[in-house]
């Protein structure tokens, strides 16, 4: 947070959370927060330029064991992004798996100021936090994986949702995490025996189904005043014909009443879950069916997981999925199963416009954005780096804003785009207000961060502002893309961190974490069982498990009381 005053004058402001849709107005910041007025400010002239709150990314893999394993086994990716240190910046490396410094700088240059690390294995949470601390500028948080955990499955089996709630509360606290992350529920545990699970299969040895795990976790999560819902990567990701599994997964939380005005489930990287056909041969887009579901229902929000063409590094706790992918490509493959909790798979992948499957995947990501009517229900992501690196966001933005660009691009893709996807028949074009929704407003609201100053520019909000070097009337897709890649200014907590596309300051970001407050008696009862797990099955001791305060030097705590 910077002390002093700043005035951003005459910008065309898009602040969807506050209903500001392209109004010419001034933004005043004092001591890092948005205020009504200032008296003796430093002035930034934003005349005629697009001004938005700092971007908020709801789902991106930027820190931790799997990201670093991706960097380690891909020196060829590291080479791609090297940039020498400057007086202000540390050296950069990497394209799909950038080093920590590049991660912070590149997001900031796109006008982003908050990023959610999408998957934190609880046992390795210290690692995630060590890297988050090393990412400059960005405020951050991380989602602990809590679905393939033996404790979770045992409580699901016994039907003790209160004790399950006590467990997830303890784990979110112990990992300094933000919410409940679900990745291939049951399937990752099965992968420890080289097996996988569909939604209603029984998890080997645990006598529960993935569907039961998802439902119970949603119920347990809503027992607290949690800012965010459960955050779900469902079963059968990346399999042809999986769209019905996807909608069946959505159905699981129908009727569960969320604590606040957000859905009971956030379903992530939906592109990977919107597949029709029965084989790769007759693979087709079912974005329409998924969008139809989202349009008719209020209990699920999504993010895109939109494809960026080119080489990338795929990584997920969905171990069996990465193994399938490696079998298709024959490229290198890393796997890292984590005792009692989760797993990890990593393999490089090339998305090619010449491939019919990749072409349809590419279409689906954008189709979802174009077919879901209400932009408040979706966020722009590439599930970085799985569908492509985050620095591809400006490409997606320009596509969504320009039918012309989509038509031109479709010509370069495999011809299946014309008959196995709706892509070319959709005329909708996003306006800047809608772009602001899917790149900051929706994510902030869905994560509950708007109540903590993120994703908007109302009085009291954080002074996080992106000023794009473009006029609100701009229709040239190339210019739009360029403007969203490098801001004219990015301001973080009232401090200019990017000017004319160059990083000029690198303040440390804050780590947001949630403290669910659980009844002591329940917690004590749960701990008897958990301590037994440590005594007999974990390879680290109970007392060495929780993330120590030293790992979160810039904490921002959000309390989540038990709902009475």
């Amino acid at each position, binding site marked *: 947070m910077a002390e002093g005053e700043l005035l951003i004058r005459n910008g065309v402001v898009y602040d969807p959370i506050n209903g500001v849709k392209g109004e010419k107005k001034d933004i005043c910041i004092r001591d890092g927060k948005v205020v009504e007025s200032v008296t003796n400010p430093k002035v930034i002239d934003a005349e005629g330029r697009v001004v938005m709150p700092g971007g908020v990314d709801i789902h991106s893999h930027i*820190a931790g*064991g799997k*990201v*670093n*394993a991706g*960097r*380690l*086994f*891909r*020196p060829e*990716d*590291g*080479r791609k992004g*090297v*940039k*020498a*240190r400057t007086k202000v910046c*540390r*050296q*950069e*490396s*990497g394209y799909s*798996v*950038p*080093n*920590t*410094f590049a991660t912070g700088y590149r997001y900031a240059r796109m006008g982003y100021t908050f990023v959610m690390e999408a998957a934190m294995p609880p*046992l*390795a949470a*210290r*690692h995630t936090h*060590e*890297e988050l601390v*090393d990412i400059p500028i960005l405020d951050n948080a991380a989602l602990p994986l809590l679905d393939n955990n033996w404790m979770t499955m045992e409580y699901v089996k016994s039907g003790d949702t209160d004790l399950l709630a006590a467990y997830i509360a303890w784990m979110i606290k112990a990992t300094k995490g933000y919410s409940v992350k679900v990745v291939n529920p049951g399937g990752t545990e099965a992968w*420890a*025996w*080289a097996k996988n699970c569909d939604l209603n299969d029984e998890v080997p040895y645990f006598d529960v189904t993935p569907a039961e795990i998802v439902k119970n976790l949603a119920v347990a999560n809503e027992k607290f005043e949690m800012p965010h819902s459960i955050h779900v990567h469902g079963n059968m990701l990346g399999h042809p014909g999986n769209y019905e599994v996807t909608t069946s997964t959505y159905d699981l939380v129908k009727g569960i009443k969320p604590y606040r005005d957000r859905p009971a489930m956030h379903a992530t990287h939906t592109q990977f879950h919107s597949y029709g056909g029965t084989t790769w041969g007759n693979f087709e887009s079912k974005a329409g069916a998924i969008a139809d579901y989202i349009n008719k229902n209020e209990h699920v929000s999504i993010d895109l997981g939109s494809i960026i063409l080119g080489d990338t590094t795929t990584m997920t706790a969905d171990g069996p999925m990465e193994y399938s992918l*490696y079998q298709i490509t024959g490229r*290198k*493959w*890393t*796997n*890292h*199963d*984590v*005792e*009692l909790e989760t797993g990890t798979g990593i*393999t490089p992948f090339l998305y090619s416009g010449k491939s019919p499957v990749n072409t349809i995947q590419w279409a689906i990501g954008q189709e979802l954005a174009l077919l879901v009517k209400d932009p408040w229900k979706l966020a722009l992501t590439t599930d970085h780096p799985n569908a492509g690196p985050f620095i591809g966001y400006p490409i997606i933005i320009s596509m969504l804003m320009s039918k012309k660009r989509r038509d031109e691009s479709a010509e370069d893709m495999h011809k299946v785009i014309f008959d196995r996807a709706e892509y070319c028949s959709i005329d909708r074009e996003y306006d800047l207000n809608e772009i602001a929704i899917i790149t900051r407003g929706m994510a902030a609201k869905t994560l509950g961060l708007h109540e903590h100053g993120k994703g908007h520019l109302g009085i009291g909000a954080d002074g996080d502002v992106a000023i794009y070097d473009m006029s609100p009337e701009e229709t040239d897709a190339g210019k739009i893309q360029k403007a969203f890649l490098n801001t004219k200014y990015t301001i973080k907590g009232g401090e200019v961190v990017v000017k004319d596309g160059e990083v000029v300051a690198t303040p440390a970001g804050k780590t947001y974490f949630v403290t669910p407050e659980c009844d002591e008696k329940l917690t004590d009862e749960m701990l008897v069982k958990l301590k037994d797990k440590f005594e*007999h*099955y*974990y*390879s*680290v*001791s*109970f*007392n*060495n498990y929780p993330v*120590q305060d*030293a*790992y979160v030097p810039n904490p921002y705590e959000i309390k989540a009381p038990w709902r009475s």
Partner: protein
Amino acid sequence: MVEITDVVCSLCGCVCDDIVVEVEDNKVTKVKKGACAVGKSKLMGHGRIEEPAIRENGSLKACSYDDAIKKAAEILAASRRPLLYGWSSTVCEADKVGVELAEEIGAVIDNTASVCHGPSVLAIQDVGLPSCTLGEVKNRADLIIYWGANPAAAHANHMKRYSYISKGYWTEEGKKNKKLVVVDVRRTATAKMADVFLQIEQGKDYLVLSALRALLYGYEDVVPEEVGGIPKKDLLETVKMMKESKFGIIFFGMGVTHTRGRHNTIVNAIEVTRAAHTHTKFSIMPMRGHYNVAGINQVCTWETGFPFAVDLTRGYAWYNPGEVSATDLLIRRECDTALIIASDPGAHFPGESIRHLAKIPVIQIDPFPNPTTEFADVVIPAAISGVEAEGNVYRMDNIPIRLRKLVDTEYIADEEIMKRILEEVRAIREKEGE
């Protein structure tokens, strides 16, 4: 007397964290539970570098921390091709400052993996690493293979805590329902415990791995009657055990990394794991030596993109083991200064590189004297991480654990020493207008 539980051992890659010690008068007086003999010795303490020193006219003269740090900074700031080496027996917090210093002065930063599991890293960069945490092995593995590794001597608690002798969820009867295969060139203490011991001929690891791989893929006809000193029937028996296991793991050590074929041999071992994985669950893990060698690889990777042998002379990271790895630089007599922290190249590097090290200014940071001390020009004693200083380390399976501080000390921790050197270097460079 105070009893401290859940003490974390800062010796080897096992990073045992269930140790109980007694502390009296600011000294560890007893190790009650959990540590192996070597770990115990480290926790109890032994001969250390008593005070900072600077070499004058051939012998080390005691000085203050301030003087030693200042001298170290002067040497580094004046250097045109500095090497910063070691980093495996200290905490990640110190390693991070090391990378920052390397950037500041345009140094090569390399760590002990370079002469240890460096070939494993190269193999992983070629084909990846299907692996798991040690608790997975403990709970599930019914087939354990140690290849070119002798944990009975080098990782004394490994079998007890994590593998053959441990008891877990699906392995509650311990070794009774497990099989142990040991592959080595000599009958080690570990080999004596094995159900199957394959005593291979020196340098024939690659051949034996290839034979196993062929058999796992069903090409029995291409495998000759004897491979690397092992009769085909023994190989077939091993493969049968692999296929019939529910969860198998290969732990490999320096016997594989430092035999003919180097990283190619490890690629082959990983390919064997992939082949076994077509039948059942199979994983593979390097037996990392120092307690935080995995950690410096992690830190160096997330900060530069690369795990070891990183040259920052150009301002950005240039990774090229074989060119900018420590021994190669030294053998080419390319570096003109070396900072050696938490390691001992004096004992472990090839003679030719040590000869160059002895000629150039060397700064040593370490709690303990070792052969490197004999030619170091500035010696800075450090607090013992895990006894006198806390911090993060990564176990051999890359699980991060925080070392505990057990007693107070006058000695300065590695992180603080590194920060002070960096500050001094920056002050000098600023003065010189760089």
